[in-house]
């Protein structure tokens, strides 16, 4: 029996049609895969279902009745719950407090902890979980935190659970645990939509699948009747020819060398483990890995924003103890991962954003004074050379589109032809044209003899522009491949820890 039916959902954003007449129907008591690459429109569709976006077109039916979902609270009341990739948990509160948060049973206006506890324990028992209810979330591993998220939905009486790439943060053992949990949920009659781009997981746990590509449904099928290859072809589609760039012709001397570099993440857990890598002039090295494999920490360590053990050499000089600015003075440029938090100051205009890495030098400033004229000219050059669509250099950065914001950052970091460029997810969230522009800029830099380290979650992109791909898994470099000599599948096996070099 069809539990959920989303009918010809269309959602347009400026420049992008994220969902184009998408149909989705899910049976009660099944695990349905929503399969597609990054940017295929999976998250948009689910955000519509969860009440975070309003669709431009289309209708949603739950058990045959048409419903409207203006906000997430309404979705929860309808029994729809979502586990986001980034958990929505309060680290300092206990497991039990997190589960009940916002929906605490009350008596005489106060939280009724006894009832709350009883209700949670009943759920745990019914679904066969065992969780340390009195421990603070911060002390628990990610896999357990995810279980807390799931219990939280069950506590809110969710019938339909949306899991957004649930394994991207898990270790292989934790993935096993998650699958067991999902089996139980299915047996208890819950319906699950499983968002992923990992075929193996679809084969393992899902019964039916809807495959999205570029905002459209390209297939709906019984998983048992389809081969992985079939699924992959549907998902990836035809290789887009103009996406592949010529490989590097001339590789020069070593520009960036990491020797035995280890670092901790914000929680104090090892995030990088004895990473060795060499980046040479005239090459683009891609870093592949599932989310949270140490990519963010790698960028921060190279940039000098996170302390690390080991040695970092830049242009033949050890810079392990150098400040971010000193490293930049030695030829490093960084496109940070978080555009709005790290890459830009949204409270000011383009001009002040593009001088942030060079304002202290002539001609931008004298001994004490900051000059506006050179900054204005420089910003104008960036607008021009990087095709930033903005009314002027004094336009507020927050009013620019994501693509133009990214071009501002790209221009700031690349216009001086840095010898070493570290680019973290530089095309994330951009439309096709803007993404292509940024990729071409990196290729251009490489062809002029620059060394580029590209961190990306998009395998297409990594295969299209990289000369070598390094695979990061749990903070280690587990493999190195030339894109022309490997496949998505092989890299995928490295990314998930199924293959190791050597």
């Amino acid at each position, binding site marked *: 029996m069809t539990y959920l039916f989303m009918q010809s959902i269309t959602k347009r954003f400026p420049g992008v049609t994220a969902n184009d007449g998408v149909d989705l129907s899910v049976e009660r008591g099944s695990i349905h895969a929503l399969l597609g690459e990054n940017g295929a429109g999976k*998250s948009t569709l689910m955000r519509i279902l969860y009440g975070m976006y309003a669709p431009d077109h289309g209708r949603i039916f739950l058990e045959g009745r048409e419903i409207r979902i203006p906000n997430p609270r309404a979705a929860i009341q309808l029994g729809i719950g979502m586990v*986001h990739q980034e958990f*929505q948990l309060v680290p300092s509160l206990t497991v039990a407090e997190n589960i009940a948060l916002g929906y605490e049973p009350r008596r005489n206006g106060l939280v009724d902890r006894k009832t709350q506890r009883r209700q949670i324990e009943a759920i745990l028992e019914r679904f066969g979980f065992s969780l340390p209810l009195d421990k603070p979330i911060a002390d628990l591993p990610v896999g357990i935190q995810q279980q807390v998220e799931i219990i939280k939905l069950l506590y809110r009486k969710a019938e339909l659970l949306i899991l957004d790439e649930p394994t991207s943060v898990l270790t292989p053992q934790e993935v096993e645990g998650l699958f067991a949990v999902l089996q139980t949920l299915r047996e208890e009659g819950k319906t699950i939509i499983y968002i992923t781009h990992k075929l193996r997981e679809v084969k393992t746990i899902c019964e039916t699948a809807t495959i999205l590509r570029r905002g459209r449904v390209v297939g709906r099928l019984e998983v048992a009747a389809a081969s992985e290859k079939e699924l992959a072809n549907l998902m990836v589609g035809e290789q887009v020819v103009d996406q592949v760039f010529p490989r590097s012709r001339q590789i020069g001397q070593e520009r960036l060398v990491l020797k035995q570099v280890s670092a901790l993440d914000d929680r104090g857990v090892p995030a990088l483990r004895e990473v060795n890598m060499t980046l040479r002039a005239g090459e683009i090295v891609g870093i592949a890995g599932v989310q949270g494999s140490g990519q963010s920490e790698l960028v921060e360590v190279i940039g000098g924003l996170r302390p690390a053990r080991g040695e970092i050499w830049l242009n033949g000089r050890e810079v392990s103890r150098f400040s971010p600015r000193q490293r930049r003075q030695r030829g490093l440029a960084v496109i940070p991962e978080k555009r709005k938090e790290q890459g830009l100051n949204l409270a000011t205009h383009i001009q002040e954003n593009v001088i942030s890495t060079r304002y202290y030098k002539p001609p931008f400033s004298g001994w004490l*004074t900051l000059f506006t004229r050179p900054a204005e000219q420089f910003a104008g050059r960036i607008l021009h050379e990087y095709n930033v669509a903005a009314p002027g250099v004094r336009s507020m950065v927050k009013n*620019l589109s994501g693509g133009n914001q990214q071009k501002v950052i790209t221009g700031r970091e690349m216009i001086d032809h840095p010898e070493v460029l570290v680019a973290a997810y530089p095309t994330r969230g951009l*439309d096709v044209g803007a993404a292509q522009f940024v990729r071409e800029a990196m290729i251009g830099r490489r062809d002029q003899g620059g060394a580029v380290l590209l961190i990306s979650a998009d395998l297409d992109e990594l295969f299209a522009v990289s000369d070598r791909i390094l695979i990061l898994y749990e903070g280690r470099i587990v493999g190195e491949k030339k894109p022309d000599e490997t496949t998505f599948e092989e890299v995928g096996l490295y990314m998930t820890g199924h293959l190791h070099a050597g």
Partner: protein
Amino acid sequence: MQAESSQLEPTPSQPPPLEQTTPRLSPVAASLLRTLFTLLIALLMGALVMWVSGKDPLQAYRALLQTSLGSRTAVANSLLAATPILFTAMAAAVAFRAGIFNVGAEGSLYLGGFAAAWVGFTFTDLPAWLILPLAFLAAGLVGGLWCYFPAVLRSRLQVDELVTTILLNYVAILFTEYLVNGPFLVPGVANAMSPQVVPAARLPRLMPPSQLNASFLLALAAALVMIYLMTRSKLGYEIRMVGDNPQFARWSGINVAGVIERVMVIGGILGGLAGAGQVLGVHYRFIAGFSSGLAFTGMTVALLVRNSPVGALLAALLFGMLRSGSATMEIMTDVPRDLIRVLEATIIFFAAIEFGSLLWRRRRER
């Protein structure tokens, strides 16, 4: 709602926001309007309080205006009252702009004031041209150092500067009180005062019989320097970037810890100079508890003008008017000077909207 933070995360399918092209009020005009609105509300609130307690608000405000601007001496007295506020408002504005909550200027004011007094009553043989700069130098140095300590705790160890500076203020206030009741007790004089500074260490009066003195000119100069610093200098750019988005500043290679330290030390120096100005220009000695919250008045001013340095200069003068006018108003009408506190409190209340967002940002940054 539990979904909010993930809504803000950029994801592949997230839309680019719309380009905004609607014309807006220029930022300067907008902030001026907001400031005037806040002041107007405050005056209305004050009028309401007076009306409720059976006084005539119009008469009171007329008296206030008269006694703050009505004569040469009245103007001079307003400027006199504005002098320390100029220093402390700039100290507060520069810190707030960097996202730093430095309350330590009050402590610096006491310690700087005492340092100036100490120079003034110790080096009795020095000529005025030497002892005055020396006294101000000592005050600035002591004031700056006093804030350097919490600054380092904040920038290196992430110890909340709001907490440390509030607590250190008590240390400074009580320590100076101890000094003038113990080691520097003057026999035969009412206690809690230091000896008088020598005549050479007294700042010249500008418009007698008002006590307005040369420290006003120094305050004005300091304010102009601060305006330049915050709007035109490299450090000012760094302060603004750190204040707007410390993460961005760090990724760009700006030494965030260094900026925070400098901002807090500058606040301390300004506090110290304010104290010295009061001691050498008005009291001619250190008196325990002489400030009664001048640094906090400065913070009110900075909040009112949302940390605009030019605005702080103008608003400090306005607050000087209110302060000096209120004293005479009390005599001329039967409206107590506490009314002015009501006005200031109302201003704080409305400016608190900004205050709240500042605190919010502080928390997020950690």
